[in-house]
């Protein structure tokens, strides 16, 4: 197997994530925390992020369907999600969180719903791209690399 080609593909995919605004500088900060003591730290953080964010999106989806509209609850969920996005540098998701919260502040239901749909799309795209990225890294790594964690 051409490991150097796999590494090039992984690097290219990661560059694309930054160039397209999916990730920002904070992701590099997270990468900087990976060391010999925590060789899979970045992937572990990403797994935790998608577990957290998936839960928050599900909770918010349920809250959005309820009447009367509870903008305070919606905002609280989105504030948590925004914080999570900030921790890993999920920039486009974070921007949609902020857009949603702006709409919340204006009691704009349509704005909230629109932002939420965009957020879900960004979440799905980022998840798919990062899954591909880590899969390439695992394939490019040494033989006997760690088993794939569930994302």
């Amino acid at each position, binding site marked *: 197997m051409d490991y150097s080609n796999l590494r090039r593909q992984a690097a290219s995919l990661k560059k694309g994530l930054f160039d397209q605004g999916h990730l920002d500088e*904070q992701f590099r*900060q*997270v990468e*900087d*925390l990976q*060391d010999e003591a*925590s060789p899979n*730290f970045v992937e*572990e*953080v990403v797994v*935790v*992020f998608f*577990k*957290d964010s998936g839960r928050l999106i599900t909770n918010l989806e349920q809250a959005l369907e309820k009447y009367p509209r509870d903008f305070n609850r919606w905002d*609280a969920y989105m*504030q*948590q999600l*925004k*914080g*999570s996005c*900030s*921790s*890993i540098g999920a920039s486009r998701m974070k921007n949609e969180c902020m857009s949603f919260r702006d709409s919340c502040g204006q009691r704009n239901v349509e704005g909230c719903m629109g932002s939420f749909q965009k957020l879900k799309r960004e979440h799905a795209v980022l998840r798919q791209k990062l899954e591909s990225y880590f899969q390439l890294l695992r394939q490019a790594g040494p033989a006997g690399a760690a088993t794939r964690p569930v994302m």
Partner: protein
Amino acid sequence: MDRRRIRVLLVEDEEINRVVARAVLRAAGVEADEAENGAEAVRRVRERVGAGAYDLILTDKQMPVMDGHEATRQIRAMGVTTPIVAVSSDSLPSDVQAFITAGADDFMPKPLTKEKLGCILSKFGLA
């Protein structure tokens, strides 16, 4: 003589934020305890009053059971003078002022990074 390790209490309810902050603290060579809400933070601080007090407390704002503002107020009410730095994603001037009024010493927007932690440790003479 071995230099005593700095002891920090990290108060944060969201796992992802704890994971990242924990790694930042570890990279700085700091000993860290964790509390998932303000009430647990107050309990941990109370247990350490006197010998073994924390050198620094980093706290989030929005948490279940007890938020960061109330935890800060209660810690100060115990007479604890440990530096308390709020680390929160809500960073409007009103958010910052609310923490300072509660008794915090400083405010840092999330997320915690090596650079931000370095600034905090330097500011309070812990570097």
